[in-house]
C-alpha cells in the first residue's frame, strides 16, 4: 500500500496525469468504466410465465436487447443516474400481444460509484 502511494506521488510529480493510463502501439485506450449493467426478467402479469422476444431499449438510444426464452435480458448501458428502460413486444412469439411498458429507473450514488454498477429489474407485462 505504502509503495503504491510512492508510485502515485512520483507519477504525479512527473506531471504526467496519464502516467498510469497508457496503451501499447497495437492496443486500445483504457476503458474508464462508463457503463452500468442492466439485467432482468420479463414475465406475463396474467400467467407469471417468462416472455421471450421482448425488445428492451434505453431512452432513445440505439442499443437494445431481446429477452431470451427464459424472459431474461442483460445489457451494459451508459452509466446514467436516470434512465427510461422501455419494453416492447415486437414479435408476439406467444401469439399474445403484450402492452409496452416504460420503467424510469434512478440509480443511487453508491451503485453508480461501485466497481461494476448493476441493476436488476423484474418486469410484468399486461396482455393487450
Amino acid at each position, binding site marked *: 500500500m505504502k*509503495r*503504491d502511494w*510512492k*508510485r502515485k506521488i*512520483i*507519477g504525479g*510529480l*512527473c*506531471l*504526467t496525469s*496519464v*502516467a*498510469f*493510463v*497508457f*496503451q*501499447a*502501439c*497495437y*492496443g*486500445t*485506450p*483504457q*476503458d*474508464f*468504466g*462508463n*457503463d452500468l*449493467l442492466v439485467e432482468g426478467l420479463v414475465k406475463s402479469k396474467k400467467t407469471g410465465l417468462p416472455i421471450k422476444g421482448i425488445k428492451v431499449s434505453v431512452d432513445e438510444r*440505439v*442499443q*437494445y*436487447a431481446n429477452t431470451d426464452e427464459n424472459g431474461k435480458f*442483460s*445489457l*451494459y448501458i*451508459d*452509466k446514467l443516474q436516470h434512465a427510461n428502460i422501455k419494453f416492447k413486444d415486437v414479435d408476439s412469439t406467444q401469439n399474445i400481444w403484450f402492452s409496452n411498458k416504460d420503467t424510469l429507473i434512478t440509480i443511487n450514488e453508491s451503485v453508480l460509484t461501485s*466497481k*461494476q454498477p448493476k441493476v436488476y429489474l423484474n418486469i410484468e407485462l399486461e396482455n393487450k
Partner: protein
Amino acid sequence: MVTMLKQALFRVFRKLETKHHELNYLFWECTTRCNLNCRHCGSDCSKDSFYKDMPLDDFLKALDTIESPSEHFTVVLTGGEPLLRKDIELCGREIRKRGMRWSMVSNGYLYNNEKHISLLNAGLGALTISIDGLESSHNWLRNNDKSFERVDIAIGLAASSSRLNFDVVTCVNKRNFQELEEIRTYLIQKGVKAWRLFTIVPIGRAKEDDEMFLTDHQFRELMDFISESRTRKDIDVKFSCEGFVGEYESKVRDSNFFCRAGINIGSILIDGSISACPNIDRTFSQGNIYKDNFFSVWQTKYELFRDRSWTKTGKCTECKDYKNCQGNGFHYWHGEKKNVLVCHNERLKKTTNC
C-alpha cells in the same frame, strides 16, 4: 534544466513501476484468422490460420489465476481479426463477469450496426480501429477494394458512442504520408476524438516493401506534424509508444517514452504462450498457459523485460540517451537480438542540420 529534472524523476517513476510490475493490460490473441491481407502485417495471419482460435475456456482458466486484478485491469482482444470469432460477445461477458474490463482492436471490416450494439451490450469499453489512409491508399494497403467503405461505417458507429473510449490508429508509410492532414480532417468530421500514429517495424511481409518505410526526413516531418497537431485542440493526436524520440519526447505524446512490455503489459498468444505485446519476437515467451500458472509466471518471470541492461549492445552500447530510452521498444529486438532494429533517435539526429 527543468527537462533534465523531469527526465530524472520519470526514471525514478519507471524504476518503481518496473519493481511493482502491476499487470493491467493483458492482450489476448484470440484468433489469428484474418479477413484482410494487409501489406504491413507483421504476423502470419490469413483467412485459414494455421492455429485454431483459442477456446474461451482455456483463456478463462488462465485469467482466473490472477489474484486481485488491478483497478484498471483490461483484457485487450486482438488477432488476427477478433470479430471473426462467433463467440466474441460471450468472451466479453465472461470477462466482465469476473469484474474485469475488455476492449478490442479491429480492422473494422465486420463492424456494422448490429455488431456495434451486440458488443456494447456485452460490455465493450474501449475500441481501436485502424485506418491507413484515404480511400485509395487504405484499400491499397489492405489489399481490398471495399475496405475503406467498411471501415468508414465502423468509425462512424464507434465515434457515435458516448461510452466507448475509442481511437483510430494509422500506420504511416510513404503512400499515406502526404495525406496526413486530410486524414486528420476526415477523422474530425467523423467525430473521432483521438488518433494515434505509428510506423512500421521492418519484419514480416513488410520488410521487403520500400513503400512501407518513411525516409529519415519524412520521419522528422511526421514528428513535426504530430507536435503541431497537438497544439490545435480539435483532436488528440499522438505518436504511439513505439520508441524514444529524443528532442520530440515531450511534444508528441502525453508522457515520456516508456516501454511497458512485461512491466504492465502481458499477453496470452494463440498457442498459449505467455508474453507481452503481441508484436514482440515470439522467442521472448515466458511460459505457456497449457503447462504453467499464468499469474505465477507474471509474478516471477519476465526478467528480460524488467531488467533491460541486456539491450546495451550494438548501437545502444555507447548511447548517451540510453538511460532515458533503454534500447527502444521491446518489439524492435528480433532474431539474434544483437542490435536494435530501429533507433528513432538516431533517425532524427541524422536530419538535425537539414
